């Protein structure tokens, strides 16, 4: 499948990426090439086949819903690019 500029822009927005003109061009050609290739799957008859959605074979294990201290407030903020004593800081949301 050949994808166009409009699709690439839509997908980039969904993926929260910002591509410049030349990156858009190379993304169009590379993604189109990969999509052509993966479309080989259309040859496979999957009529009536259930999708494989759990590879581990384990089922969900319930546990008590207890509050536990896993990391401290301070630790949680430690790797943040910008923070104060209590919060992560981000640019202004509302003008």
């Amino acid at each position, binding site marked *: 499948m050949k994808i166009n500029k409009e699709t690439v822009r839509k997908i980039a927005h969904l993926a929260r990426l910002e591509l410049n003109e030349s990156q858009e061009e190379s993304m169009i050609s590379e993604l189109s090439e990969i*999509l052509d290739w993966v479309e080989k*799957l259309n*040859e496979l008859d999957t009529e009536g086949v259930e999708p494989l959605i759990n590879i581990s074979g384990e089922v969900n294990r319930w546990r008590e819903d207890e509050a536990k201290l896993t990391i401290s407030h301070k630790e949680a903020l430690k790797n943040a690019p910008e923070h104060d004593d209590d919060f992560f800081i981000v640019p202004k949301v509302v003008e």
Partner: protein
Amino acid sequence: MPSKTIKEIQDLILKGNANCEKVVKHYLSSINEQKHLNAFIEVFEEEAIERAKEIDLKIREGNAGKLAGVVVGIKDVLCYKDHSLTCGSGILKGFKSLYTATAVQKLIDEDAIIIGILNCDEFAMGSSNETSVYGPTLNAVDNERVPGGSSGGSAVAVQAGLCTVSLGTDTGGSVRQPAGFCEVWGLKPTYSRISRYGLASYASSFDCIGTFTNSAEDAALLLEIMSGEDEKDSTSSSSAPENYQLEESTTKTYKVAYLAEALNHEGLSPQVRDVFQETLSKIKEAGNQVEEIKFDLLPYLLPTYYILTTAEASSNLSRYDGVRYGHRSDQAENPEMLYKKSRTEGFGPEVQKRIMLGTFVLSADYFDAYYVKALKARKLIRNKTLEILKEYDFIITPTAPTEPFKLGEKNKDQMEMYLGDVFTVQASLCGLPSLNIPFSNKKSGLPVGVQITGKPFKEKDLLQAGNFFSKL
């Protein structure tokens, strides 16, 4: 120190010919001498020596763990509390782990010494170690060649004697292919056998922690220590871990299937085919049953793999948003720009491409045509593969279709790079244990791996047979 395996090193220590401190210092000097290989991103020099002294004391007191004397390197996607974790990416530069991965903790609990963090492809996406933000790791057998990927640093660290064993991760072959390219043992266990807690996610239904070692016995010991149920990973298997220790002498022979489509694959190099066929003949001569079978799903493995792993990656990597950790763009005026600019500046081109592809196949218009179709294909592939394994002990293939290639040789052509995983993704799609047995091309001297894939949770048989085949 010519000793290489865990047993050899522990024997030296037991006889009083070495201690942990000496062993660590030996590796530190090897790392320094071979810096050009670019295997390590960070080395914990003082910390490793300190820890060695503590373990030497434990040995004298007679209460040391099973891995006393063993020096381990870990791939840069595994958490180790208060140490760097960057996934070979610019987006995580400066990040320090808040906790330790379960698998790493289990090694430490048995007195393993963690010596440093190993280079890898960015977010484990690559087959040559060339997508790392730290630059490529070089193959020690020929510095112009790649070590494979994505766990290239982990493979080279063991190949070049920079540590005793190392941990890598395998999503579509990222332990087995570099092990094949560097002539070391590489084990990807059954999906869910080892907890993924503390492994930075790429494609969660494929990701496995695996090992690089100088012997099958070492792989068995590490697996025994790392495997088991973990309440922090609800996909981890609840089946009890086994004793994987190999039997010393056995007369057991095996029934092995090779795939006609693999042997006749157009991408298979004549050199690899020769080594593979020679290995098949030896296995047969040693009394094992070796048969050709048809596997007409081979051409569908990589397409299924790339749709599903990129879909999972696009979801998993959405957490890197420049807010709570990692790189933040200083060009952002509002939150949306913050996400977009931080991610675009932080991720390299291969990662961006896979996120885009994954987002595409999950988007409303294409979800059924690509993603659901691939989930169904995965089911067919798994059913067919398990059917084969009902009749045979193992499926045997070359680990990779070519010998280790030159740096830069394949990164101009994405399809050629992706085709390098053609034989490894089958076990990943099916969640099966799979092992690289180290061999080499006697003429060129270049490593050529042979891969055997076994039944779910039958790692012991896999290692036992691998050990047997390697000695023929």
